[in-house]
């Protein structure tokens, strides 16, 4: 817990300096003569230590003169004290040479020597929190005012007090400038979000490095309620000390630590009603559906699959027997509303020598899909002890046990194959039976894709156990010098027992089983282990010279090794279906498993210099060696430098300071960072990319296995770090008694030697291509954080917003050559993954359009080889009425792939923003959080959103409503065609969608019970709250959720009722 220690030291320093700074003011206000009196009193105290107590009285007010009720007034160093009454008055018996300590929440503590005075009027100054805010930085913490780098601290209590945040990553959305959060999957237990700090700097894994209590960890392995502080290190200067993995920014998480003083207990619990936000509508009326499918087949000159009498039959039975004649909406039928609960209890406290924080959390989330619930118990104990004045020891222990229902494993199948269902299926009858196709003309194959059957076709028990232990010790042999060593061990153990469940699928119309749910029983046991060892030694020296020069030197070394392994065995033929282990089965067995590893060694150092609290300079250096690279390419060096000028401290600012300016600081930084994420987003991949390896590719000879080995991965021995250089200029400011505060940053982030999968010509075969260091990407942008807070009587309010403008550009790649993956293009001068698509000239609808198409054919150029006129539509087919006519962008008379052009700026938003407004009046508090992004334009076209029909597949209502049909002249979408016909589904701008959105992430209303009611129960605080999470989304996007890619588990809408309790 060296950070905590460091933190503590700095806090102490801050506190002392605050006293030095503020005491004279307070004293001056209390009594103009106090300074002298205090001085003389010192002598009195020395000569006459045993003086009798005398009674004093006084009143405490806020700066405006309003009485403060309930302020603490204590004789320093004793337990002798009182609180102010309803008029803000107090009386107390004290020694004449005592010092009074007056404190009240939200105000700066004041100390006033009594010095024989008997009556006091004390004006407390509001705590200008911003000014003295301490921010956790790499290997330590700093006063925010002394930061030279770009660091955003996230207010964790705002995040966890009343929002149903089960993981921090998704909770970060909208909370910090420059931090973009995108949900990738929202399923319980795996509701991971991808976090981008300052844009997509690389084509690889752009996830920031997450450091939890000094060690790399999974951001979602920490219970959000246990987090004391969370800082995002955005520029090179603040992150460079993490070197080779910090290129995408660093998120530093420090867990809570106990404080000296009374024991404190907190409880936070809530109940959340979950459902999905539905933004997509499918054709659910089966009669309409059949007509539309017929229309598509007819348009493609295919025999129509549905007879008119079947359609009529369904239409007649609309609203009738829903079991025989269903009109199923797959979204409504697949998802459900569920109730999740969350409880957290923590206890903390400490004495002079030892401090502790313990917490227990329980979460139960049944999920909005069947058999996909998640239950988690987590525990944490943070203890630190001052064993000797020069030795501090401590430990952080944490862990969790989580149970996942095994249907979770099939969720991706639900989305992959869910489009292969139709409204003519009953997913589940009220009596629990599962349905297949009721209509024998429909594709019986689709019956097997019943999402509810898919989810329930597996049973078993998935358990994940995470244990993390960290021990540390700090030696302080001489003042100003300390040596900290720590060792961390993390083990994640996953045990998965699964068995197939055989489900009968029914045709409810003729009441027969379409598919009998039988198969060979089997049991699979899979064990996955992750192990991480980390150790570091850090030496620090700090001192102040000439009363003005602050020197802070830190140097250290660390090493880390990581291993991931799994083993899985399956055995057929269970003795009894209830058994769940391998020995419970008697048939043939198969087994598989593997292991991967990586290791790193690092050396790092930092020097901080400060002159007179005005001029600050910081230099960092890090050297990293990684096992992912061959020895020649192994080591990377990452220096950085940053400086800040606290303009407000200058003499010439005195005038402004006394009127409206509180804080003004200019920062600049420049530095180099690295990225070794060779394997992309999968941390277990890419560990051996520098080595040529051969995999098993067996063959059969004479009916027996003949071992075969082939190169399935091409190596790149020259593989090395990609390096990112970030320049940052920023201003921090606070005005009007810090009611207004903010930060403005400009950054220029240049990533060189990006590790990229270049699409090699397919003639290289199927062996995977290694990442190569190529391409340069520049991200530049402006981040603005602005806040206002004020109090008018009992009413206080605040508005905090952050905006990030970002421009992303590939500045060097392969000259004019480009690489294309689907519609996503990488090319010099373009943003990463700009969409490269055809442009739709029009939907051919009228006879004029048809004539125009014919004129293109008639005027087509002559083929020089054959002398014949070319067919301008050879590539995609001649558009008929209802088809898309693509623009001949290069005007060569032929419409083909050469007519593609880039559209939009790819998956990176032009700007993203968050806005948090809150207000409080007496016990009532209210807040709203908006979050949004703008400018993402991506191709969206999948099985749920396509103008083609396929027997047994869903249709999207947006498309069918807007489709071209005979007689249309204003169709939004082309005519329906058989799925094998791709003329209208080519990547074109028609399928590019604007994924901009504004979400009201959270609205909450809370009420804190008055203290006067609580005091008799010895309860410090009771707050009840209700909140709505993710309830409102404003977007033009036609897919499931603009935050997720294509169709997958969407973000949850949650209505929450909760309780905070403190004792």
């Amino acid at each position, binding site marked *: 817990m060296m950070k905590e220690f460091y933190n503590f030291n700095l806090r102490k320093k801050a506190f002392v300096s605050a006293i030095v700074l503020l005491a004279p003011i307070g004293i001056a206000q209390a009594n103009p003569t106090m300074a002298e009196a205090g001085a003389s009193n010192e002598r009195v105290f020395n000569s006459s230590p045993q003086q009798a107590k005398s009674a004093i009285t006084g009143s405490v007010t806020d700066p405006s003169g309003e009485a403060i009720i309930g302020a603490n007034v204590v004789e320093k160093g004793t337990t002798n004290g009182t609180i102010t009454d309803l008029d803000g008055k107090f009386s107390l018996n004290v020694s004449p040479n005592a010092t009074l300590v007056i404190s009240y929440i939200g105000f700066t503590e004041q100390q006033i020597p009594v010095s024989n005075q008997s009556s006091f009027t004390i004006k407390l100054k509001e705590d200008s929190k911003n000014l003295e805010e301490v921010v956790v930085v790499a290997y330590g913490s700093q006063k925010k005012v002394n930061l030279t780098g770009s660091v955003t601290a996230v207010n964790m209590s705002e995040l966890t007090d009343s929002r149903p945040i089960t993981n921090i990553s998704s909770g970060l959305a909208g909370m910090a400038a420059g931090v973009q959060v995108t949900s990738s999957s929202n399923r319980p237990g795996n509701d991971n979000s991808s976090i981008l700090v300052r844009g997509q700097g690389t084509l690889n894994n752009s996830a920031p490095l997450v450091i939890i209590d000094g060690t790399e960890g999974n951001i979602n392995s920490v219970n959000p309620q246990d987090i004391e502080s969370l800082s995002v290190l955005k520029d090179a200067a603040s992150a460079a000390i993490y070197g080779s993995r910090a290129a995408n920014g660093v998120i530093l998480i420090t867990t809570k630590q106990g404080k000296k003083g009374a024991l404190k207990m907190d409880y936070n619990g809530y109940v959340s009603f979950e459902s999905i936000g539905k933004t997509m509508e499918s054709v659910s009326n089966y009669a309409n559906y059949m007509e539309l499918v017929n229309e598509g087949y007819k348009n493609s000159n295919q025999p129509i699959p549905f007879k008119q009498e079947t359609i009529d039959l369904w239409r007649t039975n609309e609203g009738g027997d829903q079991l025989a004649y269903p009109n199923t909406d797959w979204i409504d039928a697949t998802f459900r509303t569920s109730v999740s609960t969350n409880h957290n209890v923590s206890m903390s406290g400490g004495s002079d020598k030892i401090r502790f924080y313990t917490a227990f959390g329980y979460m139960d989330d049944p999920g909005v899909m069947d058999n996909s619930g998640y239950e988690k118990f987590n525990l944490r104990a943070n203890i630190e002890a001052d064993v000797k004045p020069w030795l501090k020891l401590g430990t952080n222990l944490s862990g969790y046990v989580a149970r996942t229902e095994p249907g979770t494993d099939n969720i991706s199948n639900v989305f992959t194959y869910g489009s292969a269902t139709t409204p003519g299926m009953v997913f589940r009858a009220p009596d629990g039976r599962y349905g297949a196709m009721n209509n024998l003309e429909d594709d019986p194959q689709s019956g097997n894709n019943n999402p509810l059957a898919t989810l329930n076709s597996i049973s078993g028990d998935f358990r994940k156990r995470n244990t993390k232990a960290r021990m540390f010790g700090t030696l302080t042999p001489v003042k100003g010098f300390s040596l900290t060593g720590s060792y961390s061990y993390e083990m994640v153990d996953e045990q998965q027992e699964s068995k197939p469940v055989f489900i009968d699928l029914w045709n409810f119309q003729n009441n027969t089983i379409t598919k009998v749910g039988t198969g060979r029983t089997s049991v699979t046991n899979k064990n996955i282990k992750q192990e991480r060892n980390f150790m570091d030694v850090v030496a620090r020296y700090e001192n102040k010279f000439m009363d003005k020069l602050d020197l802070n030197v830190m140097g250290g070394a660390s090493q880390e090794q990581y291993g991931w392994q799994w083993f899985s065995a399956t055995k057929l033929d269970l003795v009894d279906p209830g058994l769940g282990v391998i020995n419970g089965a008697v048939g043939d067995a198969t087994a598989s498993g593997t292991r991967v590893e990586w290791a790193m060694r690092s050396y790092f150092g930092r020097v901080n210099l400060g002159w007179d609290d005005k001029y600050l300079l910081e230099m960092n250096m890090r050297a990293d060696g990684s096992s992912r690279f061959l020895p020649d390419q192994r080591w990377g060096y990452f220096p950085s430098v940053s400086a800040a000028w606290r303009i407000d401290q200058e003499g010439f600012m005195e005038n402004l300071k006394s009127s409206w300016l509180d804080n003004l600081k200019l920062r600049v930084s420049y530095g180099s960072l690295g990225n070794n994420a060779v394997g992309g987003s999968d941390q277990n991949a890419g560990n051996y990319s520098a080595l040529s*390896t051969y995999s098993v590719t067996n063959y059969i000879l004479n009916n027996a296995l003949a071992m075969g080995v082939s190169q399935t991965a091409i190596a790149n021995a020259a593989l090395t770090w990609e390096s990112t250089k970030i320049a940052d200029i920023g201003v921090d400011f606070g005005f009007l008694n810090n009611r207004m505060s903010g930060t403005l940053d400009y950054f220029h982030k240049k990533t060189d030697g990006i590790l990229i999968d270049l699409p090699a010509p397919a003639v290289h*075969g199927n062996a995977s291509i290694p990442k190569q260091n190529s391409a340069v990407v520049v991200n530049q942008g402006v981040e603005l954080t602005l806040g206002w807070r004020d109090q008018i009587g009992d009413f206080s309010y605040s508005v905090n917003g952050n905006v990030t403008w970002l421009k992303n550009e590939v500045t060097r790649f392969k000259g004019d050559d480009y690489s294309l993956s689907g519609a996503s293009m990488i090319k010099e001068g373009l943003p990463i993954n700009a969409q490269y698509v055809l442009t739709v000239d029009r939907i051919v609808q009228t006879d004029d359009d048809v004539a125009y198409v014919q004129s293109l054919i008639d005027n087509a150029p002559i083929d020089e080889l054959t002398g014949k006129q070319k067919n301008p539509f050879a590539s995609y087919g001649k558009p008929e009425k209802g088809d898309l006519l693509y623009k001949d962008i290069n005007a060569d008379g032929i419409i083909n792939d050469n007519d593609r052009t880039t559209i939009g700026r790819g998956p990176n938003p032009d700007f993203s923003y968050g806005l948090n407004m809150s207000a409080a009046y007496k016990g009532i508090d209210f807040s709203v959080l908006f979050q949004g992004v703008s400018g993402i334009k991506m191709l969206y076209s999948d099985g749920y959103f396509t103008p083609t029909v396929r027997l047994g597949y869903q249709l999207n209502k947006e498309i069918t409503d807007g489709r071209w049909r005979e007689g249309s002249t204003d169709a939004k979408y082309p005519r329906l065609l058989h799925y094998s016909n791709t003329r209208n589904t080519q990547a074109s701008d028609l399928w590019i969608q604007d994924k901009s959105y504004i979400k009201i992430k959270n609205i909450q209303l809370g009420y804190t019970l008055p203290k006067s009611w609580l005091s008799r129960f010895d309860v410090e605080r009771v707050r009840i709250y209700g909140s709505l999470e993710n309830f409102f989304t404003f977007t033009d996007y036609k897919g499931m959720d603009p935050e997720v890619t294509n169709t997958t588990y969407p973000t949850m809408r949650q209505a929450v009722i909760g309780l905070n309790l403190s004792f």
Partner: protein
Amino acid sequence: MKRYKEILVSVASLLLLSGCYDLDRYPYDQVSSGTFWKTEGQAKQAMMGVYNVMKSDNAFGTTYGLDCLSDLGIGYDDPGYVNVYLGTYTARTGQVVNRWQTLYDGVVRSNTVLQNIPNAEMSDATKAQFAGEAKFMRALYYFTLMNFFGGVPLYDESVVVDKDFNNMMEPRATIDATREFILKDLDASIAALPVKWDNSNYGRATKGAAYALKGKVLLYNKQYAEAATNFEEIVKDPSAQGYGYSLYASYEDLFKPAGDQSNEMIFAIQNSGGVGLDYGMPMTFYMGSRSSFGSCWNNVMASTGLADMYEYKDGKPFNWNEVVPGFNESADVKDKTFRATLSSDKKTVVAYPEAKETLLNMYKQRDPRMNTSLILPYTIYKGWVSNARKDCEFVVAVGTNESNGFIRNNKQWDSYLWRKFVAEYNMDGGINNRAHTPINFPLIRYADILLMLAECYNETGKQTEAVALINQVRQRPSVNIAALNSGPAWLEARSKEQVFERIKKERAVELAGEGHRFNDLRRWGLLLSLSGKNEYGFTGKRYFTRVVTERDYLWPIPATEIEKNSSLTQNPGWD
């Protein structure tokens, strides 16, 4: 002083903790390049990797599905090549791109073997043999590439993919240069390969296979005389090499484990199955129905036209009208001929069609290859349902279900299904996975050679010799249908045109389901005969209409490949 001692001890113990973690890490489940290519055993392992590519869906794993691009098969989804027969495939269609890449994967693996054999410790003779084997496989992959795409870029063992993977930017060689390259490889393999391998190596390429493939390459280029020489080498064995190829007595068993190592097999993909040994091909998966092991998809089915091609045993051509009057003219009659009625719970047959016995009787009169290759209405298929054997009847009715003992066509089409290559029961435990059918898949078998040689003879004016070879195939013991030119007018085949028609038909019924027909139609220049062809079920329902144009003789070069290598030119009609 004591304090400093304590500190010293603490620091020392901290340092002790920090043993260094090793930064050199190697994979646990793979061989790395440094340790490979040392021994003959490893050379063989690498060679097995070359063979391994054949089973990929995009190499030969779905070869039988290519029949759907001819008049012999119908199908749906990728294994049935739906995009191709509807003419909707493009230069970006997955199957086009993947076929290109996968066949090149085979080329690259062959090249890797050729590059590294010199490094392994073994005799020069063994090295030469490995080189011949690798060249045979390279020739096979290039030949297949050439068939689909025409002239292709040629990469030989001088290209080290490890280093050059980004710079493989060769333009397309001409079709002649591509063929030359293939023939050169085959000459080398003819010289190096053994006539037979020892038993434990059964399945590797042989000298005979190299001759056979060379003959086929030449035949495809209409070099009939040269092709004939190569085929004769293995048919007549002039220098007494002891090839020992012959027709296997049982046509039925040829496509079952019993016959898949017979003397008829010249080069076959070696498949196996069973728990833990999933090294087969997905014939059952794609050709089998819901009644087959693992509940399959019948993506690939036999066309009605194929069934009607089978002659009577006496060689008389088949005509439905002679069996059921008015059949050919009326869809109603067709439907009535086959249609049964099920009970309302779909469990039993309430009424069989009147013609059931007529049909069963008619099947018995036909070329026996019909009943062994296809599942015909009202015959029994040895199914596997709910983990148990189930004899399933092919009843033509709506709502048939395998659990009630019926065959269920996954697509509900009234179409003939393949019996050939499809697992019966669970193959006595031989099959564990529907995608891994443990039946060797012949790429070249003796009957094919006989018919190709017959074609060479016919083209070079030797009709009598040609007919003799065709008759060999017709009179395999288990088939034994009337010989050509043995009496009745319908068996007359004397002119070049007549004999060619016979070769066409004989290849169709003998090699059905083996994926040769699409290539045959193209090399004969007959592909456009499929243009606009409607495919009907046997009950007369139209299922689709083929869209075939001139450009379909060659598939497009993948657009994604042209994007990476701008020196590649597109095939005619594709841009």
